[in-house]
């Protein structure tokens, strides 16, 4: 029997974490994502599955608890919103450097600084370009519905363990706070069916000591390690790109949008089509790896692309890189906590591409 529930995006993530067999959650309250830890506590995650849920003294502590627990090979996650994610960046860099799997959720709010608790997509750069120090990448998934908030939790864990790399679910205040119908997946037991050779669980006489570290005092081995990381990111780019296309086949123009902005654009697309303008929507589901190959293909036959983001224009840079000057690529978006409407998007689109 299918199980449907009406849930907030943040609650769906929390329920999905319990069902995905997460072993531990460490977090620190911040709007608009506090419901995640509140739900785990209220719904007695620990009683239900044995999952550890601990409120840390800061995001700094939370991400380092994640780092410690992830080293033991457990399924560990944390969640926060923009300022808290900024605070975690050193730890995330260590986790990427030490090649540990974990899931990080960012329910983005507007910045810079303390900004506002209203939704935003201005953490794109921080998410897809690394975020902390050093050359590293996160696997970045961008849900655009409450259903995907739930479904992407086990997917993020699978990818994190497959690549021994942190996976980030990049959501925002709209998706986190809105209520929608979700179909929940069946609980997955808390098991460890992956390669355990690297975990720190106590050195038994049959193996060498395992050390979780990102340190190498010598530059040559460090360069080698970096080459290994880069090869891993390349493999992700070859094998893990995910996106959705709506009416791109006959489109003259493409809007590119992810998360809540993609929902708004799908409505703008209908308005455009009603007027006879052939617009398509490409929704990246993985922001890293980015669907650059597909965007380059589409650029061969459409007249222009519009990146529609709740930011001053960040993803637009990656689209331009993929398009490599072939066609005009522009940006439109409200930001600083404001959310564009479908008619605002259509108006901007027409102004940029049709009226000129």
């Amino acid at each position: 029997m299918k199980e449907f529930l009406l849930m907030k995006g943040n609650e769906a993530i929390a329920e999905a974490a319990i069902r995905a067999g997460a072993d531990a959650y460490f977090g620190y309250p911040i709007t608009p994502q506090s419901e995640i830890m509140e739900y785990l506590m209220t719904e007695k995650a620990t009683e239900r599955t044995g999952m550890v849920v601990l409120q840390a003294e800061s995001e700094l502590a939370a991400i380092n608890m994640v780092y410690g627990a992830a080293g033991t090979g457990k399924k560990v996650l944390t969640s926060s919103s923009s300022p808290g994610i900024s605070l975690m960046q050193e730890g995330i860099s260590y986790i990427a450097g030490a090649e540990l799997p974990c899931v990080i959720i960012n329910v983005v709010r507007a910045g810079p600084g303390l900004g506002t608790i209203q939704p935003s997509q201005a953490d794109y750069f921080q998410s897809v370009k690394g975020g902390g120090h050093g050359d590293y990448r996160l696997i970045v998934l961008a849900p655009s519905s409450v259903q995907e908030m739930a479904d992407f939790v086990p997917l993020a864990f699978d990818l994190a363990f497959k690549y021994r790399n942190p996976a980030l679910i990049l959501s925002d205040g709209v998706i986190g706070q809105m209520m929608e119908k979700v179909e929940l997946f069946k609980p997955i037991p808390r098991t460890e069916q992956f390669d355990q050779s690297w975990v720190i669980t106590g050195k038994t006489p049959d193996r060498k000591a395992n050390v979780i570290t990102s340190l190498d005092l010598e530059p040559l081995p460090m360069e080698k390690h970096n080459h290994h990381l880069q090869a891993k990111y390349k493999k992700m780019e070859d094998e893990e790109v995910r996106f959705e296309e709506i009416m791109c086949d006959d489109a003259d123009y493409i809007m590119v949008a992810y998360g809540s902005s993609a929902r708004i654009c799908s409505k703008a697309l209908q308005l455009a089509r009603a007027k006879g303008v052939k617009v398509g929507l490409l929704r990246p589901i993985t922001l890293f790896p980015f669907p650059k190959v597909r965007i380059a293909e589409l650029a061969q036959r459409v007249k222009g692309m519009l990146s529609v983001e709740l930011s001053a224009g960040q993803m637009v840079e990656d689209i331009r890189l993929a398009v490599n000057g072939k066609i005009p690529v522009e940006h439109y978006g409200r930001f600083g906590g404001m959310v564009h409407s479908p008619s605002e998007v259509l108006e901007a689109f027409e102004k940029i591409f049709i009226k000129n």
Partner: protein
Amino acid sequence: MEVKEIIRQENMVYQRSSLLTSKPFSYCPGCGHGTSNRLVAEVIEELGIQNDTIGVAPVGCSVLIYDFIDIDFSQAPHGRAPAVATGIKRVLPEKVVFTYQGDGDLAAIGTSETIHACNRGENITIIFVNNGIYGMTGGQMAPTTLPGMKTSTSPYGREVATMGTPLKITEMIAHLDGVNFVSRQAVHTPAAVRKAKKAIRAAFECQINKKGLGFVEIVSNCNSGWKMTPVKANQWMEENMFPFYPLGDIKVDGKLVKTL
């Protein structure tokens, strides 16, 4: 001739811990870190917990402790060892988890993680090597640097009016209910080494018996950072560090045994 031919087994009173790897310590000659690393290895071996113990290495001169003690380790970002240890211990509550940290790591950048891990009563062991200076980065002032003490960032001596007084973090955390055992020791003489080892053992036993957090401060030297010979550094430590950081047990079995 081999050692075992010279010394008969029944006459053996001391030998190198089998948990110490063959890698030579990277510490400066005369530095207290070497002895402190060794004591931790010996205690783990004597308690027979090497298969179940996970160490957390700091950022500081002892970052490579995982190269010297042959057990599983996680290296931690600067100051975050107690949070990393919390993460490990919470998902593996039956394992023995300890951190080994310097004073810059534990009492400056990691003050918050230290206090909160102690306050939650994490069932872990913390070994804190206080040499009153940032050894690894070349001898800068630490929160633990003594008043008037010269370092590379207090070249005219620590001026209390602008730089504050040394932080006695060990006394601070001793007041917290989650902390079961607190002791301050040194490793500069054979007698001190014996006492320090006893305290380290007690701090690990406290964890094994699930009594709460065990914390041992080792007041140590940094002859390189202090710009002294090893002998002079130990003498200076006795004359200046010990009056400010008095040695002895502070809390035993959850009770303060010293008026602070």
